[in-house]
């Protein structure tokens, strides 16, 4: 069933809770300042930790003098690598020949490999004193040559970031499934080349990373509160580094102020805070400040794509050749490793298009910059950017329009399930339908006239399209194929009904803005036939919830929702059995609805769920002995992966004098299958687009050739504000997937994935009459003016 209806905001509830724009149950406490983020937890006796970080991108550490620091009032201790010799470094690992293993030290001992690398930790009775102490630590460096970008790292004679990788290539993947590819290129009527590159970004959640650790003698556990998306994964890594069994570590992720991927990996700081607390026998807190967040935290997105596409006369893509480089920085994150962008780029480049033949080489190049981690979309914003530039250029080469070329190449509805050239099997989507709808919404047919009219008034308008699909909710098969040291993917959920009939959901995902307390309750409410207000969530505590993998990669509604659905069904079955016994009916004749178990066809025979819960707990002597006691169920779900899709369109205006780009209109037509809560879906899309636009126009972590960060504050790292963004018009198709019980697909990243390509295509569309194009994001106004001046110079015209 395909529909393009944005349900009315006040649509009256019909059927179940799934599909309603239900207000979020997490809002009242967040709106009143009652959220609990890590830094909101103050424990008596806490020591505040501040890192001494490297000032140089590449250097040997000749000496660390802490004498003065220890004299600073309030400073209690200064830790260096010497103090934590028994703490094992973090190893992000791929079991592949094409991967070079490097360890990430918790504190640098002999060398530093990027500005911001932690060298020492100062612990004091206040963060102020700790910062005083950090200033007083005197590190003697032997500065060595740094490599700050791909070119420098791959140049002959370049300094090696790691001895283990003398050529600075840490991952080098080739996929070559199509032996006849070269022949196709030789004979193709049109071969189109594209080279695009993307700037380095910081995910920049408004709450930076944050940790608080202490030892609980009662349970003999290291307790670590961390602002993380993945509490169990943090437990795994911290336990390994500290040499403890996993049950000796309890990770609690309280309210988290945004993650976007940067908190789905394990950081050195998390390990060190736990280690420091163990060593000093006191609670230790570290709150990342914004300078650290921008210059020493995980980064992402700096890539270059060199593509060739072979197209037939009609514009159908016959073969795709790609060379991809990712600047992975100096280390490998756990558990995804520095191969995370490299693998994703190679695997997902074909995207929503039919690519019959494919060859790709994808490399991860080490540089003296902070390591990369996943960031919303992981390589797909860049891969889509590359493919969408290819389509634009191919359309021109073939002599057809941007809509036609895409329509010709997008996977058609009749082809689903579609197996792509890399072997991935796509579930059904509305690729061409969303394109057509988006074109209609922006009145694409009349665009050339509008654009020409505007041009004659001296206005430069551009319309850009981007079509893509978003593989979401990877399961253990997909993660297993990456060959990491641990294999994420499944999810578990426990559902417990209390004696009063209220339900607690305990799940391994972690909501930090996605509204799981609401959407999960909507799913479970439908299964149990109770009101969602009776259902609450527990999450983010490894002692409290079943082992799971947290929230990232657009997985929660699929994996967590799938596990909850299954657990709710199990619990519902038990409620039906209890009701059947009490009502003297057959369990299969009972339905759970409106808070009651009712016998089908005899409305008078029913019993309240509260009564079932009471009997199950407080009067279980009335129940058969062979019916297990309690009302609790735990189930798991291992997703096969679902493919959401969308087409984005941006209409921009370029100020021909300043080069400034204003987005006048932004339209998204997306399809994430069944929406659990359309309000939250729209919010995710809109917020995702905002981040994509940030990367397209504003944000970049610029580094000097010496590896010094030049954007170390929000004055230079430009996050979009309300005046920089359009109102995003979000429209939906709904192609339910058969891979999840609710028909829902993951969708958290799509907005970010589609936006850079739509914006870059729009800017280029505005410049098209000048014969110049831009192939890099972020698009700075100065870049726009530079190409416009180039165009004028070419034509001998003074701008």
């Amino acid at each position, binding site marked *: 069933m395909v529909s393009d209806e944005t349900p009315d905001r006040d649509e009256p509830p019909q059927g179940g809770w799934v599909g309603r724009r239900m207000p979020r149950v997490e809002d009242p406490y967040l709106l009143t300042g009652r*959220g609990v983020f890590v*830094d909101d937890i103050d424990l008596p006796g806490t020591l505040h930790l501040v890192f001494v970080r490297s000032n140089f991108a590449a250097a040997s550490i000749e000496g660390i003098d802490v004498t003065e620091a220890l004299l600073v009032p309030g400073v209690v201790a200064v830790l260096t690598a010497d103090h934590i010799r028994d703490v094992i470094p973090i190893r992000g690992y791929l079991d592949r020949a094409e991967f070079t293993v490097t360890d990430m030290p918790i504190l640098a001992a002999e060398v530093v490999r990027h500005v911001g690398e932690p060298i020492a930790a100062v612990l004091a009775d206040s963060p*102020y004193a700790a910062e005083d102490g950090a200033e007083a630590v005197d590190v003697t460096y032997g500065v060595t040559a740094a490599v700050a970008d791909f070119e420098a790292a791959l140049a002959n004679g370049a300094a090696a970031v790691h001895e283990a990788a003398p050529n600075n290539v840490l991952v080098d993947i080739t996929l070559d499934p199509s032996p006849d590819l070269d022949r196709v290129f030789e004979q193709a009527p049109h071969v189109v080349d594209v080279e695009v590159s993307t700037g380095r970004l910081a995910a920049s959640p*408004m709450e930076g990373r944050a940790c608080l650790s202490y030892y609980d003698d009662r349970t003999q556990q290291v307790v670590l509160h961390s602002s993380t998306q993945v509490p169990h994964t943090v437990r795994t890594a911290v336990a390994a580094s500290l040499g403890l069994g996993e049950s000796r570590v309890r990770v609690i992720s309280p309210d988290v102020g945004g993650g976007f991927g940067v908190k789905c990996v394990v950081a050195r700081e998390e390990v060190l805070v736990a280690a420091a607390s163990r060593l000093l026998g006191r609670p230790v807190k570290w709150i990342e400040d914004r300078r650290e967040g921008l210059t020493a935290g995980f980064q992402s997105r700096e890539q270059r794509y060199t593509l060739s596409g072979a197209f037939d006369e009609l514009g159908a893509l016959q073969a795709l050749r790609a060379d991809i480089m990712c600047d992975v920085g100096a280390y490998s994150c756990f558990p995804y490793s520095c191969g995370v962008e490299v693998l994703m780029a190679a695997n997902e480049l074909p995207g929503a298009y039919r690519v019959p033949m494919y060859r790709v080489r994808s490399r991860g190049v080490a540089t003296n910059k902070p390591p990369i981690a996943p960031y919303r979309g992981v390589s797909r914003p860049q891969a889509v950017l590359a493919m969408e530039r290819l389509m634009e250029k191919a359309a021109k080469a073939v002599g057809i329009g941007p809509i036609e070329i895409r329509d010709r190449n997008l996977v058609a509805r009749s082809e689903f399930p579609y197996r792509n050239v890399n072997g991935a099997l796509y579930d059904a989507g509305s690729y061409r339908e969303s394109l057509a709808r988006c074109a209609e919404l922006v009145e694409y047919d009349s665009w050339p006239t509008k654009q020409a009219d505007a041009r004659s008034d001296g206005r430069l308008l551009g319309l850009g399209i981007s079509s893509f699909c978003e593989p979401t909710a990877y399961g253990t098969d997909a993660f297993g194929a990456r060959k990491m040291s641990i294999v994420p993917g499944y999810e578990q959920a426990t559902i417990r009904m209390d004696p009063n009939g209220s339900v607690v959901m305990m799940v391994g995902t972690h909501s930090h803005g996605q509204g799981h307390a609401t959407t999960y309750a909507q799913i479970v409410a439908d299964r149990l036939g109770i009101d969602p207000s009776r259902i609450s969530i527990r999450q983010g505590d490894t002692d409290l919830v079943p082992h799971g993998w947290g929230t990232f990669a657009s997985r929660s509604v699929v994996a967590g929702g799938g596990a909850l659905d299954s657990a709710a069904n199990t619990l519902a079955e038990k409620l039906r059995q209890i009701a059947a016994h009490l009502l003297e009916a057959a369990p299969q004749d009972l339905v759970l609805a409106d808070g009651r178990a009712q016998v089908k066809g005899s409305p008078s025979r029913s019993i309240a769920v509260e009564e079932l819960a009471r009997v199950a707990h407080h009067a279980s002597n009335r129940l058969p002995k062979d019916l297990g006691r309690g009302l609790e169920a735990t189930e798991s779900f291992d997703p096969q992966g679902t493919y959401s899709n969308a087409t984005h369109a941006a209409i921009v205006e370029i100020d021909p004098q300043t080069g400034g780009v204003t987005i006048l209109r932004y339209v998204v037509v997306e399809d994430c299958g069944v929406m659990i809560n359309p309000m939250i879906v729209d919010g995710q899309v809109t*917020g995702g687009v905002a981040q994509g636009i940030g990367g397209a126009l504003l944000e970049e972590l610029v580094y000097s050739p010496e590896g010094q960060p030049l954007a170390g504050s929000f004055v230079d790292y430009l996050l979009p504000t309300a005046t920089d963004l359009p109102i995003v018009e979000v429209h939906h198709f709904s192609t339910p997937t058969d891979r999840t019980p609710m028909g829902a697909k993951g969708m958290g990243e799509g*907005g970010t994935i589609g936006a850079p390509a739509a914006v870059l295509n729009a800017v280029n569309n505005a410049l098209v009459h000048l014969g110049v194009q831009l192939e890099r994001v972020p698009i700075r106004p100065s870049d726009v003016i530079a190409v416009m001046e180039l165009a004028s110079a070419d034509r001998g015209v003074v701008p």
Partner: protein
Amino acid sequence: MKDIHDIEITINGERRAVTVESRRTLADVLRHDLGLTGTHLGCEHGVCGACTVLVDGLPARSCLMFGVQADGREVETVEGLGTPENLNTLQQAFMTEHGLQCGFCTPGFLMLLTALLRENPNPSDDEIRDVVASNICRCTGYAGILRAARLAADSDAIAT
């Protein structure tokens, strides 16, 4: 030698006495000395606005002000708005319009818009957008915040 001051701040109508080192920012005093952790720190250099509170009725970045400067003055924080059971009009509008996701920046936006709506109960959409641009939200793309401000301004109830 630490420079220590005994100060009194009227916070959300209540006089609170506290002893502070002069360099302690108002944000840290509110959060860690007075337990008002609803005010959040997002950048500590005045750009993101997560720490916005009202000082003598005006919106101020509490990371750019020292606690000692608030001595004898009136400070309003998110804790002075409605309660979870009884959200005020602006908070309710944020909920209705999905004006928050992770909720970390939200108190700053609430205080910012409280100041705006007190000063100008009938702002235009452009005025709202201009004021919302004071602060940074990384989750929402601002659409819900703008709608919430509009809804609160249009509401019959007094918005703040």
